[in-house]
């Protein structure tokens, strides 16, 4: 059975309970669910928000592509990915990745892989808004994040 892949790019808060429930809904062949949630940090109280710009259309398409790549590598039953854009406050979810499989190794590896690829391949850009409301600079991409892709080749 092919993996059930579901992707959303949204400016609305993420309902974690609903996301997790949806991953396993209506089936009893799932033995393992791994999730990753990336959250906005307040950077010691200096950050008011993140503003995330995205490339509509391409963002969804790239995320689906990365999910399909994961499903081709591991025996996944379901993949759910939600990525926010717009203004995100400290404590709120930026990205949610959930993977379901019969066994734990596949679920873990796929979630790890998905996050590495989303970081460097999905068209989103973060700008920091300081506690006083002024715009800081764009968040710089980390060489580490690009290097991380080498783990999967």
């Amino acid at each position, binding site marked *: 059975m092919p993996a059930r892949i579901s992707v959303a790019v949204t400016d609305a808060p993420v309902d974690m309970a609903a996301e997790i429930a949806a991953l396993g809904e209506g089936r009893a062949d799932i033995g393992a669910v791994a999730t990753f949630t990336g959250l906005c940090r307040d950077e010691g109280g200096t950050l008011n928000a993140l503003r995330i710009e995205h490339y509509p259309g391409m963002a969804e398409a790239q995320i689906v592509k990365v999910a399909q790549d994961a499903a081709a590598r591991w025996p996944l039953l379901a993949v759910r990915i939600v990525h926010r854009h717009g203004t995100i406050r400290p404590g709120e979810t930026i990205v949610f990745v959930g993977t379901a499989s019969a066994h734990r190794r596949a679920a873990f590896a796929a979630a790890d892989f998905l996050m590495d690829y989303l970081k460097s391949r999905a068209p989103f850009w973060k700008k920091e808004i300081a506690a006083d409301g002024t715009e800081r600079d764009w968040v710089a*991409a980390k060489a580490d994040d690009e290097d991380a892709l080498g783990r999967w080749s």
Partner: protein
Amino acid sequence: MRILYFAWVRERVGRGEEEIALPEGVTTVAGLIDHLAGRDEGYAYAFAERDTIRAAIDQELVEHDAPLAGAREIAFFPPMTGG
């Protein structure tokens, strides 16, 4: 041809999108970058660190040597920082 700009590329060129007629002799992404960088100070600044600029043709990531033939939408942006 529609061109899109995102993040600091957008801020530096001063717009999010535009329509252009491809000048004769411009056949690759790199050629288009050369052409745009020659327009004015903002464009020159946006494309100054050429190696860091990412490009997509019709919403697929491409290298700078990719041909433009048949493209409807080209996008330029900095390295992505999602996730």
